[in-house]
Structures are given as structure tokens and as C-alpha cells.
């Protein structure tokens, strides 16, 4: 008896393994909620506020996708993931998409089997130190103790940078940003290194941000963007074009405030195509025609998301820099809605 139960279970497991791969879009619609992997808490990018509502720049992307697919920007289940477990969570299907300051690299794209759907923040690796350490450049860091979050590209960049410059260092591997803060603030490490944007965000939460400084060196390219599993192109397209809609909206002057008005029809055919008053771009994505209206209404266009979460008026205070639109000398550029 026991044995037949065992064999039955084994058979059932085998069958299940065969079935579990329908389209992500259908899964999300069936669940009525988008499972979005985010950081475990990085103010400005993804962190819960005092009431437990997630907010931030990456969270905005999740909410925009949920608005496009489910019509409700709150229909998101935020799954906080450490940098170490994020890829396993995505490839195992625990989450539908990952928006977690993740650097687009060759091996992640090609070998790990993910599809990056664009870049929402052009970043680079920086170093944060206390001002009273008396260090002005990363080249003076020989022998320093450095806190790094494990499982990140910064870990590899750091090793390369110190090796190429013939310097030694003592790495202190850490799981989450919060632990890194604790170790750095208590002086267990001299330097904290990660993406410069995350450093700025972390510094903003310190009691005395002025006692800390970012060193001038940016030692790597870190294009951060949302990603999905490879092999489900329709779903990848939805995430990609949601991001593109946010950026194009800023470029064309469509904002959270005026999107409802513009959706009725404008003189600009690209706005009309994007917002669905002309053509059927939404239908091609497997969505309804005013998907982009909801995307922009959810949290504003790219520029608005940037400004309210990490921009110069927010506590993080990052300037647009490389992340300005291409029309303003930045790198943010999208293919046309046509």
C-alpha cells in the first residue's frame, strides 16, 4: 500500500514537471496578481513606506506592468529578494519579472537564460567612505576592508579593479544592503561599494549623510533594467514596451496629469498610436487598447517616476546625468511606437 502511494506520488511529480510552462501572461491574468521581484529594501528604488506600501523607482516599473496587464497598479505582490537568490527565484517561476537594480550582462542574458527588457537606469560602481578616513581616490584604497553584497557584478568588478591596479583588499561579503549599512556604519569595513545610485540612496538614509562621501571613480558600467525568463517572448514584449511607453511618454510630454486628456486623441499620431486612439498596438501585445494610458496613469512617465523617487527633489538627490532623455544629452532612448 505504502509503495503504491509512493509510486503514485513520483508519477504525479513527473507529470506536473511537464505541465508547468504555460505563457506567463495567462498565468498572471489567472492569478490576478503580478509577482514582481524587488530589492529587500533600498530607499528610492524599492522599499516599503511607513504603512507597508512598497514604493520606489523599480517598484514603479512593477506597478506599471501590473496596470498594463491587470488594469490595477496595486495588483502586485512584491517579493523582496537578496541579490543572491534573485535569479533562482526568477528561473524557478516564483516571480513573473525581476526589477531589482540588476545589471544587464552577457552571461546573465545568454547563459543564465534571461531576457533583459531594457535599461531603466544607467549606473556604474562607486565607493563610499567616511570623510574622516582621509581618502580622496579609489587608488588610495590599498589594504582597505571593503563591504560588498555577494552575488553581484560589483563583486567581480571589485576583484578586477584591485587586481589590475596591483592593490590588495579584504572583502567582507554581505547578503543584504541593510547588513552592509550596519557593518559600514560601525566601522567593520572602511569602504562600501556597490552601484553609485544605491550608494547615494543608502547614504541618504544615514543619520549624518554629510560625514560620508562617494569617491570620484566609477569603475564599471552597470546598465540596470527589468528582466524576465527567456523563452516567453510575448511576456518579455509586454515588460519591454511598458518601459518603452514610460520613456516615450516623457519624450512626448504625456504625464500622469494629462494622460486621460491626451488619450481622447491628439494631433501627434505617435501619441495616438501609443495611447490606443489610433491603430491596435495593444491588441498586438495581447492587451486592450488603452494599456499605455493605465501604465502612465499608474505613477507618471519615466521622468516623473525618476523625479519623485530618486531625482534631485527627493531625499536621494540623484541628477539625471546619463539617464536624461537622448534629446537632452542622456542615453535614455526608445524605439518608436509604430
Amino acid at each position: 500500500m505504502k509503495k503504491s502511494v509512493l509510486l503514485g506520488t513520483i508519477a504525479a511529480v513527473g507529470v506536473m514537471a511537464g505541465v508547468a510552462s504555460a505563457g506567463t501572461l495567462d498565468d498572471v491574468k489567472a492569478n490576478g496578481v503580478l509577482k514582481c521581484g524587488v530589492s529587500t529594501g533600498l530607499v528610492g528604488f524599492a522599499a516599503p513606506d511607513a504603512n507597508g506600501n512598497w514604493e520606489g523607482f523599480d517598484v514603479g516599473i512593477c506597478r506599471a506592468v501590473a496596470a498594463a496587464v491587470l488594469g490595477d497598479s496595486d495588483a502586485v505582490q512584491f517579493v523582496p529578494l537578496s541579490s543572491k537568490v534573485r535569479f533562482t527565484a526568477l528561473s524557478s517561476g516564483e516571480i513573473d519579472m525581476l526589477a531589482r537594480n540588476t545589471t544587464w550582462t552577457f552571461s546573465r542574458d545568454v547563459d543564465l537564460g534571461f531576457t533583459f527588457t531594457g535599461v531603466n537606469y544607467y549606473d556604474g560602481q562607486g565607493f563610499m567612505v567616511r570623510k574622516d578616513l582621509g581618502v580622496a581616490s579609489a587608488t588610495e584604497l590599498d589594504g582597505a576592508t571593503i563591504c560588498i553584497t555577494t552575488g553581484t557584478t560589483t563583486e567581480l568588478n571589485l576583484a578586477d579593479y584591485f587586481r589590475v591596479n596591483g592593490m590588495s583588499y579584504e572583502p567582507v561579503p554581505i547578503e543584504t544592503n541593510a547588513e552592509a549599512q550596519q557593518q559600514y556604519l560601525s566601522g567593520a569595513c572602511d569602504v562600501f561599494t556597490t552601484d553609485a545610485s544605491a550608494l547615494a540612496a543608502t547614504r541618504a538614509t544615514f543619520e549624518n549623510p554629510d560625514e560620508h562621501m562617494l569617491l570620484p571613480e566609477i569603475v564599471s558600467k552597470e546598465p540596470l533594467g527589468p528582466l524576465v525568463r527567456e523563452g516567453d517572448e510575448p511576456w518579455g514584449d509586454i515588460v519591454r514596451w511598458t518601459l518603452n511607453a514610460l520613456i516615450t511618454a516623457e519624450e512626448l510630454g504625456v504625464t500622469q496629469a494629462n494622460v486621460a486628456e491626451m488619450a481622447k486623441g491628439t494631433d501627434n499620431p505617435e501619441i495616438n498610436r501609443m495611447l490606443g486612439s489610433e491603430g491596435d498596438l495593444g491588441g498586438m501585445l495581447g492587451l486592450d487598447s488603452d494599456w499605455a494610458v493605465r501604465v502612465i496613469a499608474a505613477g507618471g512617465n519615466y521622468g516623473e517616476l525618476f523625479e519623485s523617487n530618486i531625482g534631485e527633489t527627493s531625499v536621494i538627490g540623484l541628477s539625471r546625468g546619463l539617464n536624461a532623455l537622448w534629446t537632452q544629452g542622456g542615453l535614455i532612448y526608445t524605439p518608436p511606437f509604430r
Partner: protein
Amino acid sequence: MAMADQPAGKSFRLSMLLYDTRYRSITIQVIMLALFAYGVYWLLGNMYSNLDDLGKKPDFSFLSTPAGYDINQRLIEYTSQSTNGRAWLVGLLNTLLVAFLGCILATIIGVSVGVMRLSKNWIVARLMTVYIEIFRNIPVLIIIVFAMSIFIKFFPQPKAFRGDDATASMYLWDSVALTNRGWYIPKPIFENGSMIVVVTFLLSILGIFIFGKWAKKRQEATGDILPTFWIKLAIFFLPAVVVYFIMGQPIGLEQPELKGFNFKGGIHMRNSLISLWLALSLYTAAFIAEAVRAGIMAIDKGQTEAAAALGLRPKRVMNLVVLPQALRVIIPPLISQYLNLTKNSSLAIAVGYMDLTGTLGGITLNQTGRALESILLLMITYLAISLSISMVMNVYNNSVKLKER
């Protein structure tokens, strides 16, 4: 007997496999084994083909590609250009180091606490009970993280040792520095002629064993008891010290010194190692103490009383009568505590100690994305470590267990 009753010449028929009780149980077992083997084969094939569909064929070639990351505590040569396989080895050695240190300390604490818990002194016995109940009932992960945060928060930063208005100072004639990045202790430097000192030292350890056997034989023959402890202590220290000075003090000490950001020189015991080591030891010691207490209490009170009646002092009763018999009861649970400690060391990543789980199961897994392969290797490695510990301890158990003649 049944075999003998069979009429000779009656040949074996296939149906006997099913209907003959002599063969039936074997038949059933063979069929079950075949089904089980097929089941395993089928599940593995399923996994393989599903991974293939995902474009992720099991592939172990990542072990020979450069790891790309640095490891702070390495017992063997390792740079970021070494292979992932080498990183695996570094992690393995770190796991073994903390498991080895942990087992020793846990045994020392556990045996002392277990014996003291049975003390007639009320306060000592109660204190030990409190210790056991506290550490046995808190998850070891919490103890590890707690120990780490104490090290980070309450020990001074290296820069506190600097300058004229230093707020912290080194201990033991400026040779030991306790900082929130770990402990720096002097490192022995072996110069020319130091080999002779080391060899002398090893020989004197051998001498202690030989002397012990000789003293025992002498005692059995004559009944005289020598003050063996003091003589052994003298053999332990004197020859090595004498040779050390004859050879002109060839073993020096490299003192840690504050240079740049950190202390340089000496041995750096990182606070991740220390907190993991202490936490695992204190936690496991609580269980070992209970095993020791159980072992001692398992010895009949009559044994103690009989020994006392023969005129043995309480200390000798414990050492000569109770403990040797108690060991038979203590060793089996002790083995499982050693295994627990070793396996619990995989919580190391909580404090950033780069053990097996941190290197192969952590960074390598993450940077190469070879989750399945890494976890498989990880499981096999832990299994091998555990089985080895088990084997060694079982050999020891066989040597102390009751010999039936």
C-alpha cells in the same frame, strides 16, 4: 534442513520463484529494486530533459573557469583568477576549519558543563542548567548573528588604536589586538633550526605516551602510583624549551602592527570565524552536556559506592570507574552532535564566513548560474564530510564499547 529433505535431481523450475517460499522473498526484493532503479532513472531523465528544454544542460565545466571573485579567509593559495573548483576547495577547508575548532571547543565546554551539572554544589548545578536551557532553546542562527553583532558593535575599530589619544590598546605586551574586524594574534615565524625544536616537541609528545604506558605497567606490577600529571607536564615543556634556547631561539613571533587601514602581520582571526566558532560551540555544547549527564547517570550508583568502599577518592572514582563506562553511552549521541555542528556551519553565510555554502553554494552558484550542479556538488561534499566524521567516530566507539568475551 529443508534443503537436505529435497529429493536429489529435482531440477529448478521458474515457477518456484513465485510459489516456493524459499525464493519468493528474494524475487519480490529483486523486483522492488528493479522498480526503484527504474524510478530513479526516470526521475533523473525527466530532470535532464526538462533542463534541456530550458536550455540548461547539466554541465560541470564551470569548475575549471576562473572564479573572478576574492575570498577573504583562504588557507591555500587563491586569487580571483583561480578556478571555481579551487574556490570550492577553499570553502571546503574553511568549513573543515570551523567544524574542527567547533568540535574541540564544544567537547571541552560540553563535558565540563555536563559534569558540573551533576555537582553537589547547588549554585554550580543550577547555573549549568540555566546555560543548557538557554542555549539549547535558541536557534543557532540567532546565536551566530547575535555573536557577530556583539563583535561589530562593542569591539573598537582599528583606527581607535592609532595616534597619541588612542582610545583602545593592545593586550599581552602589545601582541594581541581585538578589533571589530577580528582578532589579530602573533604568528610564529620558523627560521633556520626551528625544525629541530619542532621535532623535539613531537618526540616529547610521543614520550608522554610511552611514559604513561610504562607508569601504568609499573603501577599494575608494584601498586606504586607516580605523580604522572606533573611528570607529563615536564616532558611536554622542558625538552622543547631547552632545545629552543640551545638553537638560539629560532622561532620568532610576528607581531600584528597597525599599518594603513588595518593591522598587518600576525594571524588575523576574522570576527566571522570567531562568532561562528563560538556560537556553534556554545550551542552544540549544551547538547553534549546533556549527553554527558545522561551517560554518567546511566552508571549504577552501586558502582560509585563500591569504588568508594574500596577507598578511592571521588575524583578517581569519576576518572577510573564512572567515565570509562559512561563513554559507551556518551559516544553515539556525541557523533550525531559533531555531525550537527558540521552541518550547522553552513549557516556561515549569515555572517559572511566563506565556507562551502558561501563559495560553491553561494557566489559560484550565483555568478555562473549553475544552481543544480552546484547544489548537487554541495550535497555530495557535505555527505562525504559527515560520513567521514561518522566513520572515525564509529572506530573510536568500537574501541570503548563493552567488549563481550
